[in-house]
């Protein structure tokens, strides 16, 4: 109870100081928000997953709580403003490694509240609200009370998003919000523009894939952990990627990101082609593309599928099948793979 009272008091202080800063407006405009009218915008503010975050100036000690957020910040060239990263799932790709080496790792896995506070951040970025719990990094309210804004990617914020926005559009809105926070709007806008163009390019031939009014069906094989296949359901990014390139995810009837299904069910759906998520960087049993090919070849039923027999298989890095700054790369591979398999006329 005492804690709650303290939180309330701190919140009041934050709000009061925010009001004071907005009212005085004597601090010079740092040019962080060029679209806002006049000098009243001394504080930058963005809305992130239902919370309004405001900043006195660009953060200098940002902490990214997972690999996706880390790569986004590195892509925006913000490594010098980062005080830590955490929760690395696979290897950092070559293009970010040099920048990544400059950032301290506060936790190899999920960061705890103590580790986060010990890094004395002035801004925290995460791909999902799941990382902001009491037994992990601490709640967003707790961090707000400490005057540390906590950002959550729009991609994993289903309640707060406006309906009908595609996962790629949500990713781009993240870039723009982060660019605004860090005063790196130009770089963020360029990144969004570039990736928007890549999405448009991947969708160019989508109209020509249908035969007899039917688009080719695809199964995304993400993992064969313990011998059971994990495939893409309707809520994950691959479903959207399929729509963009003019294919249909065969498991679009399952309302999950990566449901665990059976090989019989994969066989029953009899997809026109299969996308394998190569997770060899993760390095657990069954993670590499070769092992997934072998698992399909060894299954008595799946091995008889036309897609497997005729080797109609596209390989993409598995990590890129979850929404991140690298996802457009997998989308490009998917579009090119479909062209190679002759689905594009």
């Amino acid at each position: 109870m005492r804690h709650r009272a303290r939180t309330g008091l701190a919140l009041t202080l934050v709000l009061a100081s925010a009001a004071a800063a907005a009212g005085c407006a004597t601090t010079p405009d740092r040019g962080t928000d060029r679209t806002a009218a006049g000098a009243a915008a001394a504080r930058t503010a963005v809305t992130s997953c239902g919370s309004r975050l405001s900043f006195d100036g660009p953060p200098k000690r940002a902490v990214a709580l997972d690999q996706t957020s880390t790569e986004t910040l590195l892509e925006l060239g913000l490594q010098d403003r980062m005080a830590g990263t955490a929760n690395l799932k696979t290897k950092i790709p070559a293009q970010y490694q040099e920048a990544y080496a400059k950032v301290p790792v506060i936790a190899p896995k999920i960061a705890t509240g103590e580790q986060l506070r010990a890094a004395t951040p002035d801004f925290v970025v995460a791909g999902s609200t799941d990382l902001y719990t009491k037994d992990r990094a601490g709640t967003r309210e707790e961090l707000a009370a400490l005057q540390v804004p906590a950002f959550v990617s729009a991609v994993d914020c289903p309640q707060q998003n406006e309906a009908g926005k595609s996962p790629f559009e949500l990713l781009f809105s993240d870039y723009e919000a982060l660019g605004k926070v860090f005063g790196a709007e130009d770089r963020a806008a360029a990144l969004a523009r570039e990736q928007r163009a890549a999405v448009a390019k991947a969708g160019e031939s989508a109209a020509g894939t249908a035969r007899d009014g039917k688009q080719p069906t695809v199964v995304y094989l993400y993992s064969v952990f313990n011998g059971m296949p994990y495939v893409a359901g309707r809520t994950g990014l691959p479903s959207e990627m399929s729509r963009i390139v003019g294919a249909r995810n065969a498991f679009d009837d399952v309302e999950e990101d990566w449901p665990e299904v059976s090989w019989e069910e994969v066989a029953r759906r009899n997809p026109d082609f299969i996308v394998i998520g190569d997770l060899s960087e993760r390095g657990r049993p069954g993670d590499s593309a070769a092992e997934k090919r072998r698992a399909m070849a060894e299954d008595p039923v799946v091995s008889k599928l036309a897609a497997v027999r005729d080797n109609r298989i596209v390989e993409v890095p598995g990590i890129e099948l979850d929404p991140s700054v690298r996802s457009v790369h997998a989308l490009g591979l998917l579009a090119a793979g479909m062209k190679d398999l002759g689905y594009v006329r």
Partner: protein
Amino acid sequence: MSADAAGRARPAAPATDLAPEPAPAAATGPSVGLLHPSARTPGPAAAVPPPPSAAAPRYGPARAGLLTAMAVVLAASVAAATRVGTADVGWTDLARVFGARLGLDTEPLPPLLDSLVWDLRLPRVLMAALVGAALAVCGTVLQAVTRNALADPYLLGVSSGAGAGAVAVVVLGAGAGTLGVTGGALAGALLAFAGLLLLLRRTGLDSVRIVLTGVVVGQLFTALTSLALMASADADTTRAVTHWLLGSMAPARWDAVVVCAVVTPLGLGAAWLCANALDGLAFGADTAASLGIGVRRTRMLLLVVTAVLTSVAVATVGAIGFVGLIVPHGVRFLAGPLHRVLLPHAALAGAVFLVWTDALARVVFAPREVPVGVVTALIGVPLFLVVLRRRGEL
């Protein structure tokens, strides 16, 4: 899933340990169970428990000394353990944190480091002490009430109920907004206990029935938990819930500490007032009844007290295994079987044990943190073996 494993181990125990309510004469035989070797030694002196009036222990200077020493150890442990963690906290840092709050003229720590100590570390250590005390006392009480050496606070199924409640909130999103994980766990725990009482209403409160019904209720809720997890959780959620089920002090904050700090002393006091009855119950219902103890009423009171204590602990920090099982045995070895003496010692020992196991959980695999339930089991198993060996049970 250590609580689970213990749950599965339990059903075997009653067959050998618990002949249904042996007559006082039979109480001298091996069926008395593992409560204490002295209880098994044939002979009138051991067969008849001290009458309640005489049971008021003569606190010899040695006994009082032991209790004082343990209280001092607990205070020192809390202070020392507050410094242990992924971020080092020095004595001067601690002094600055307290100085700022006491209005002393000290330079406060930077806000985030101050928050690390005051909002996270300190409530966590205090929570460990409170939960450790509560679990150890609940274990002691239930071992006497059920006359089963394998009894622990989760015997009544409350931890499985709490797990099911938490999973219902996390996975299914039932009442996520209003209850939260803690509220869901508390609701589940109390629901499980209500189920237990409902089942026991028809059959009565004899000790074998309490054990068996607890197992039944626990297994039901464990199955529901597994079902909800398998049916609708992704790998990340499953991992988060598993972490929670194993027990972790990380979610402890001041509001939870305050709740525990109010409930725990009340529960411990209530158990302590029943100390004489517990001595009688440890020898069997008939003996207890012949000593003028209202067996049914006392058992019911003690079941409610332990269920509430355990539920409050489990709701915040999950089902931390083994504390409630081994601490009573270890302390019985040091302080003797009389509950008036045993209960305060068990509370202090449980508190010290959990404060240090949680400190270890923070640092042994640093920078990763392991659920404290894993550490209590890893340390508890060898300790349990040593205690049983030295008492000649194994």
